[in-house]
């Protein structure tokens, strides 16, 4: 029972973590909550659906297209809704972001309809058995995938030229631009990267639950953002740790307290963290002004 909850919690938590990576990257560079990020995750899932179920493309090709679709969406979201008003107040940017999320959600509804759709089974659903806990192959693949991607992202940010530029812009945008870093290019890259990871997460979750709907990004988006804050927004490891903690907490709460309060739990955790350690578990600077 305990082990079962841990496995379930890790599966769900690692998808929160993957989505949280996108929030943390974008918040780190722009100080902006990308409210459309949950919708980008949804777009990833629907691209997977379209290419797998409707176009019958091979699995790997479908994953590539779903990542590409999500990344392109992220790129355009930044160009259309955020770049033109980068100098405006935070609340104007927030409303623009919310507007963009409404646009994407409704475009998806027009394109794919408002019904929940079945997602094709890709990986054989063989159940594995460890000490009485049963889990599917996918439940092993998802956390491994998430953690691998987190390390890849960390390596990219830590060691490539673009990654160093990203860190420079997030630490001090003015200084970075004086040093000849084109912040617009960096911001564009961050949106593409974060959205690509969101797209993969969308695809993985769609495979796990075997169903998708146009509004699937809303609650996952909010919870993943909470995960990013739990871990310390701006931190890559923090996003993953926050995601895993949230997933485990939900899984335990559903099993041992009551499934009814599962969704509220994320918010209670959030308030507790904000109260006692607003910088999150791995956060460094406590506040980025508003």
């Amino acid at each position, binding site marked *: 029972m305990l082990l079962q909850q841990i496995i379930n919690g890790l599966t769900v938590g690692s998808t929160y973590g993957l989505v949280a990576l996108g929030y943390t990257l974008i*918040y780190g560079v722009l*100080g902006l*909550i990308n409210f459309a990020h949950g919708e980008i995750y949804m777009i990833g899932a629907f691209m997977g659906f379209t290419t797998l179920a409707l176009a019958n493309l091979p699995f790997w090709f479908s994953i590539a297209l779903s990542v590409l679709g999500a990344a392109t969406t992220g790129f355009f979201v930044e160009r*259309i*809704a955020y770049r*033109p*008003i980068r100098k*405006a*107040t*935070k*609340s*104007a*940017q*927030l*409303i*623009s972001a*919310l*507007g*963009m*999320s*409404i*646009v994407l*959600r*409704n*475009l998806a509804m*027009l394109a794919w309809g408002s019904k929940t759709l079945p997602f094709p089974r890709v990986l054989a659903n063989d159940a594995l058995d460890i000490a009485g806990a049963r889990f599917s192959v996918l439940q092993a693949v998802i956390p491994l995938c998430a953690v691998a991607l987190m390390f890849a992202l960390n390596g990219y940010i830590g060691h490539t030229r673009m990654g160093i530029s990203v860190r420079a812009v997030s630490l001090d945008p003015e200084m970075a631009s004086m040093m000849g870093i084109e912040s617009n290019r960096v911001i564009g890259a961050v949106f593409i990267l974060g959205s690509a990871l969101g797209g993969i997460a969308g695809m993985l979750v769609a495979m796990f639950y075997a169903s998708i709907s146009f509004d699937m990004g809303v609650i996952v988006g*909010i919870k993943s*953002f*909470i995960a990013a*804050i739990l871990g310390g927004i701006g931190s890559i490891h923090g996003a993953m740790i926050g995601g895993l903690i949230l997933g485990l907490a939900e899984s335990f709460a559903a099993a041992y307290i*009551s499934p*009814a*309060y599962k*969704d*509220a739990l*994320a*918010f*209670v955790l*959030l*308030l507790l963290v*904000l*109260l006692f350690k*607003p910088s999150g578990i791995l956060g460094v600077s406590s*506040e*980025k*002004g*508003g």
Partner: protein
Amino acid sequence: MGAIRRERAGNKLVVLAGLWVVAMLTPFVVRDGYVIHLLNVLGIYVILSAGLNISVGLAGLLHLGHAGFYGLGAYAGAITSTRVIPGSWLGFWAGLPVAVVLGMLAGAVLGAPSLRLRGHYFAIATLGFGEIMRSLMLNLVEITQGPFGIKAIPSPRLGSFDLGSGARFYCLVFAVVTLVLLGLWNLQHGRFGRFWQAVREDEVVAQVMGVNVFAAKMWALMISSGLAAVAGWLYAHYVSYINPSNFSLDESILVLCMVILGGRGTFWGPVIGSALLVLFPELLRPIAELRLLVYGVALVVLMAVRPEGVVGTK
């Protein structure tokens, strides 16, 4: 100079009084039931957004949980008139103080821990609080009947005179809106208004000048929440059936959009923003499928063109 200014102010007052009379008489001239319904809904949103404007616009607190307080007021009112004092017109009126007190208390409960937070952190904390309140509405089944909601909420009455629908309800809403706006006008142009403005412009300077920043923010939040509860109290008795989905995050966002689109921190901004967002979707009714899409596009475009809102000045 002084005389000219006084004369202008006098003219402005005459225009306002004229508009007020026009607004009051509209439902008696336009006798279309649907239009009157829209005006009733508009009135409720004006109370909500004018209230939210105090924290978002005046005190500079980005608040994403307003719907939680709206719901709290609605449930407080509905429970008072269906269970505490059922079968009497007094139940409706008794619900008002209950809703306001609970709303303001909840505002204080939110503010006490979260007002230490800044910017987006505060916004996310309020979002969380609003969602927790909705979760309580959903899960405290003995009190709220959970997802089934509360049905058969009696309509507002004064003695045996029914105020529950059409132009009659409009008179009630209009009276409340007028009182709320008058009260806010006084608050905004009095001591509180100056404190809030000082806090919004520069917290540190305000503190140095002797403004109790925490108290100023706390009052802003509590008054916002109290007004949201008033709106909820009216709404519950107007529609006679409420359930938790009426008070979701989308509702908080809608009201926030009203404030920001209209022009946050301005007096008439929330009124104009409410009118835009209540009436605009109606204009789009013929293209119902695309309604929300156009609404989203409009938000993005408006923020690009006028990030300070329709009547904003900056």
